[in-house]
C-alpha cells in the first residue's frame, strides 16, 4: 500500500485533476496519522510519573487518540521522559530503530533536552538529540501534563504538514536530520 502511494505523485502529474487527488490523499492520510499517535510506554525518571499522570483520569490523553503501546513495533511516537544516562543510550538507540517508519520522538523534560540539573555529571548524556533525531522538545523539570499535551498538539501540526510529494518522509527526515546510525 505504501508503495502505491509513493507512485501516486508520479501518476497524478500528468492527469488534469492530479493535484486535487494528491491534496485530498494528503489530507486523509495526515488526518489518520494525526488522530492516532500511539506513544510507547518508555519512562526513565520523574517525567515518567508525569507521563503516567497524563494518561490518567484528569488529563486523559485517550481523547486525542493516544494510547500507550508496550511494544516498539506498534508505536509511532517515542516519548523520552527522563534522564538519559550513558548506560541507557545503547538500548534507546536499539528501540528507536525497532520502531516502524513514520516515527517521531518527543524529548520530555530538561534532562532529555540537554542534561538538565545533571549538566556536569559524568554519567549523563547531555540531551537525547545527540543520538536520535527529536521532533518536539518540552521544557520543564518535570513538565506539566498540559505541556506534554501541547507537545502532542504541536506534533499533530507537524504530522499534518507531511505530504506525498515529499515521499511520506517525516519533517525531521526531510531536513536530513543527523541520525548517527541510520
Amino acid at each position: 500500500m505504501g508503495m502505491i502511494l509513493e507512485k501516486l505523485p508520479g501518476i497524478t502529474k500528468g492527469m488534469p485533476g492530479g493535484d486535487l487527488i494528491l491534496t485530498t490523499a494528503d489530507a486523509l492520510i495526515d488526518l489518520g496519522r494525526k488522530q492516532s499517535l500511539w506513544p510507547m510506554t518508555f519512562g526513565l525518571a520523574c517525567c515518567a510519573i508525569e507521563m503516567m499522570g497524563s494518561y490518567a483520569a484528569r488529563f486523559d490523553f485517550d481523547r486525542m487518540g493516544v494510547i500507550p503501546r508496550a511494544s516498539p513495533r506498534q508505536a509511532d511516537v517515542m516519548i523520552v521522559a527522563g534522564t538519559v544516562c550513558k548506560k541507557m543510550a545503547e538500548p534507546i538507540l536499539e528501540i528507536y530503530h525497532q520502531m516502524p517508519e513514520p516515527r517521531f520522538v518527543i524529548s520530555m523534560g530538561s534532562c532529555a533536552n540537554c542534561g538538565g540539573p545533571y549538566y556536569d555529571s559524568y554519567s549523563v548524556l547531555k540531551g537525547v538529540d545527540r543520538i536520535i533525531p527529536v521532533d518536539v522538545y518540552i521544557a520543564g523539570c518535570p513538565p506539566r501534563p498540559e505541556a506534554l499535551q501541547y507537545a502532542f498538539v504541536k506534533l499533530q501540526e507537524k504530522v499534518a504538514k507531511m505530504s506525498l510529494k515529499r515521499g511520506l518522509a517525516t519533517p525531521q527526515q526531510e531536513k536530513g536530520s543527523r541520525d548517527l546510525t541510520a
Partner: protein
Amino acid sequence: MTAPKPAPAKAPLPEPVLNRKNGILMADRRWPTDQWAHPWSLPGYRNGALMLAGIILGILGGGALIGELSKWGDKLYALMAAFATAKGISTVAVDAVWVAIKVLIVLHVILVNGLWSIWWERKISAHIQSRVGPTYAGGFHGWAQTICDGIKLFLKEDITPAAADHWVHALAPAIVIAPCIAAFAPVLFGTDLAAARLDVGTLYVFAFAGISVIGVVMAGWASGNKYSLLGGLRAAAQIVSYELPRGFSVVPVIMFAGSLDLSVIADAQSGYWWGVAPRWFVFYPVVGQVAFLIFLIASIAETNRTPFDIPEAESELVGGFHTEYSGMKWSVFFLAEYAYVLLASFLLATFFLGGGGSPLPWAPFTLVPSWIWMLSKAMFMMFVFLWVRWTLPRLRVDQLMDFNWKFLLPWSFANIAVAGLYLAFWLK
C-alpha cells in the same frame, strides 16, 4: 579609530493583539471549558454528528433491506436460476453468485463490527475508569477514531524481524482470521436469517473456532522473539484446554433442542411459560444458568481477554505473540480478536437467549423484526465481555489451567447429567 556605528534603529515591537474588541476583553470562545459548555454550537461537532447519523442510518437501512429480502430468498434464487437457464448459463454459476452475495454480506458484518466494537470498547473502558474516551477524532465523540487508526496502521512500515521465519511470520495473521470468517457461515442473524443452513451448525462453528490456535502458535514461534514464543505457547495451552468446557457446556442446549442446527435451536426456544416468561434455555432452572456461565467464561478465555489474557499480558510479556507485528499485520490480529468476540456473543444469543425471538409476547415487542432482537442480545453479550475485561485482574497460567481442568470441566459434565434427568422426567 572610527566611532562605533550606532545600532540600527530596530522596528518597534508590534502592539500585542489582545483579544479585545472596542476595549472589552472578548470572552475567548475557543477556551476549552467554554467550547464544550454548549458543544452543539460548534461546526465540527454538528458535522460529526450528521456524518455519524448518516452512517448509522445507512447500516440500519442495509440491514433492514437484507432482513426483508431474506424472506423471499428462495423466490430470488428461483428467479436467478430461471434467468440463468434462459440465458444458457450453468446452474453452478448461479450457485457461485448466490454464495458470493451471502459471503460478502457476512464479511461486511465482521468488518463493520471491527470498526464499531473497537471504538465502543475504548469508550466503555474510558467511562468505567472515570475518564472520557476518544472525543476529537470525528468531531462528534470520536466516532472516527477507529477509521483514523485504520488509515495510520495501513500506512505503517511493515517490519519482518531478521530473526523471523519470513513465510510463517507473514502467514500467521491469515490463519488466525480466516477460520473465524468461515465460522460465521451457520451463525444466525435473525429467525432463519443465516448465510448457510447447516444441520451440523454447532459442530461446524466449534471446529473452525479451534483452528485459530495454529495461527497464534505460528505467530509466537515465527517472530523470533522470546516473549512472543512464551506468549504463543501459553495461548496454545489456554485455547486448546478451554475448547472442552466450551463444547460440553453446549451439550445440554443441543439435548433440549434435539438437533445441532442453529435455527432449530433458536426455534426450540420460542413460546412462553405461563404466557409471560420466554422459554429461553438460560431460564431453565439450574441447567440453563450453569451452562450459560460456563460457556461465557470459556468464550472469554477462548478470545484471550482478561482475566484470561495471559498470551498478550501487557505487563508480563510486553505484547505476547503479536509483539513483533506492526502495521497491517498487527491490525489483522486486533480485528480477529473482535471478530471472535462477535462470534461468541452471537452464539451466546442463539444458544441461551432465544436468538430472534422477542422476550415478551405482547404486540409492540413482537412487531420488532427478529434481526433487531438478535443484534441487541449480541451487543448486550459483547458489553458483558468488555465489562469483565476492565474490572477483573489477570489469572496466573497454572491457576488458569487448574480452574479449567478441575472446575469448569467437571461442572459441565455434571450439568449434562442433570440435563439428562430433565429430559427423562420433565421435558418428556
